[in-house]
């Protein structure tokens, strides 16, 4: 069981604030990207990656982390895996990975070695690593692609961007865990618009058929897709009924409430015999007033003025 107390919640809240700042800075700097769905998913990713993120750290406290992972060793075989199926929210994932330490120079170089000379050279030349790397989002020759690339960035478990495929990739990893009698879990975040994809339902069907209780999907239910509100573009409700009919355990939570997020993740890990979907109700653009619930900020970078306003709002009392 994961354990949390007020202190942990407070520290996660602070982390999330920092991640939101990274996200906005990254996208502003790149001049393109997807702020809306990146911001709605920050709290969930923060909870996953920062609730006691080292196995050893937890063991010491006799606590179990939600997600076992080690930024110094992204290839650790027994790690839990996180897949961002809605790959356009990459900035959030990059922010979390950077903050967790996946982009330290040594880790980066080890990961890139012999794989891509251009990038390797840049990083060796101290062009960018660690948090700095975030400012090279979408830049030619740097690892942080517009959509996550598992061969260019340490900590990325699947290359995504074409919606609807990440859940199936997670399903494959979950099947591998079962075959290898490993205990790791696979967490996959999907978008609500992504639920339109038939492939999601194919995977919904097979994951329950194969009884993948080590697969936990988290739906970023921010009610918007690219062209507008999901219920106007392609109605999805009743979502829990759909997934239950497909054989999943379903939990509904407020995706911006750390207690609910942690409890849900914890419960999901205990469910036996079937996969779990956590329907996380979120606000698209969460944290930046004029981006909240705004379709226009699905895939558009803020201009200078908007950027300043956003940073002002996000810095607030966190002051990172």
């Amino acid at each position, binding site marked *: 069981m994961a354990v949390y107390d007020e202190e942990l919640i407070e520290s996660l809240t602070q982390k999330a604030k920092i991640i939101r700042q990274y996200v906005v800075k990254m996208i502003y700097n*790149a*001049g*393109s*990207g997807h702020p809306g769905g990146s911001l709605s998913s920050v709290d969930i990713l923060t909870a996953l990656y920062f609730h006691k993120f080292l196995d050893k750290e937890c063991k010491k406290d006799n606590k179990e982390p939600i997600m076992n992972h080690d930024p110094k060793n992204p290839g650790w075989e027994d790690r839990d895996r996180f897949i961002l199926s809605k*790959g356009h929210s990459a900035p959030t994932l990059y922010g979390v990975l950077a903050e967790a330490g996946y982009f330290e120079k040594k880790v980066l170089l080890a990961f890139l070695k012999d794989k891509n000379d251009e990038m390797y050279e840049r990083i060796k030349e101290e062009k960018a690593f660690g948090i700095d790397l975030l400012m090279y*989002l*979408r*830049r*030619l*020759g*740097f690892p*942080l*692609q*517009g*959509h996550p*690339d598992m061969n260019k960035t340490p900590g990325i478990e699947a*290359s*995504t*961007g*074409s*919606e*609807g495929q990440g859940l199936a990739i997670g399903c494959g990893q979950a099947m591998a865990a079962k075959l290898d009698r490993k205990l790791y879990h696979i967490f996959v975040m999907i978008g609500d*618009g*992504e639920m*339109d*994809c*038939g492939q999601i339902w194919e995977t919904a069907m097979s994951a329950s058929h194969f009884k993948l209780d080590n697969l936990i999907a988290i739906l970023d239910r921010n009610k918007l*897709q*690219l*062209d507008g509100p*999901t219920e106007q*573009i*392609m109605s999805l409700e009743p979502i829990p009924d759909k997934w239950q009919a497909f054989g999943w355990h379903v939990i509904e939570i407020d995706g911006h409430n750390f207690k609910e997020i942690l409890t849900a993740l914890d419960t999901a890990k205990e469910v036996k015999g079937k996969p779990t979907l956590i329907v996380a109700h979120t606000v698209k653009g969460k944290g930046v007033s004029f981006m909240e619930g705004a379709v226009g900020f699905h*895939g558009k970078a803020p201009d200078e003025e908007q950027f300043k306003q956003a940073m002002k709002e996000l810095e607030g009392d966190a002051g990172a």
Partner: protein
Amino acid sequence: MPVPKEKVESQRKAYALALVELGRERNDIVVLNADLASSTKTLEFSNEFPERHFNFGIAEQNMMSTAAGLAAAGKTVFVSTFAVFGTGRVYDQIRQSIAYPKLNVKIVVTHAGITVGGDGATHQITEDIALMMVLPNMKVIVPADAVETSKAIKAAADYGGPVYVRLGRAEVPSITSEKDQFEIGKATLLRNGKDVTLIGTGIMVSVCLDAAEVLKKKGIDARVINMSTIKPIDEDILEKAARETGAIVTAEEHNVEMGMGTAISMVIAEKKHVPMKRVGIPDVFGESGSSDELMKKYGLTVEDIVKAAHNVLKRKDKLSRLQRVSKKLIKHERKKGNKKDTKRSKSQKRKSSKKR
């Protein structure tokens, strides 16, 4: 140095305008989209004709087969999404629901090629032309600019079968004019020339024009052709270009191993072989970056075309010297009479059959 181009315009906007005009003229026009109505600009049609525009959410396969059903019931259907999701994601649906029964569906995609830029490899399809070319019954059109886009859309609407139209994300220089004719299957001559022919498609046409200017400075007179239909390809203009200029360079924002250049190679090989060089994207996935940076890195610049032109010109030179002299000698041989020749080939045959 580039040709001064009067204006840079969006193909997507031209598409949107053409659709709206078509919608006003024809009741049978129906438009489908898959959660990219704002990006592909069919939103404008939707604003004027909400009842004839349908958004399918992120369900491209369903959209394609539904388009087939609408067409089977008499509609002229335009289907739009990004190139990567309007081809590879739905290849089987296009194949089975649309191309095989030859239904009246127009697949108009935007954001093709690497100039998509920041989104990176997952969104930069450089294979779509190949995918659509290899489908029987499909027409493949890649307009060079906004003006031509508008005409291509209207021509597609007038043709009663499946058509693929490939548009880009970025604004492109306007190089064709309102009064140019557009016909599916007909390429257009943008600039006459006799030393070498540069054949471009899509955004590469304007790059070819720029390359022609550079070549001119070096005393090379380049012909430029806009190959806006890739399937069926305009064999006549190709044959003429091969015959009259004796050297060909092709340029496309697409996997160079299998695209327009390949289709042209096939024609040139059959009709009239001349030195040829294909300019295009190598057989690798793209990456994030700015359009310009990517075009440079992946070999789509004026310089790449100029270099290719020099390459083919060198080969042409060698070949034409050969041909000149051989012609002379053939005449010479002919004079010596055919008798001897016939004898020789007969004896050769005998010899070779003995061997086995």
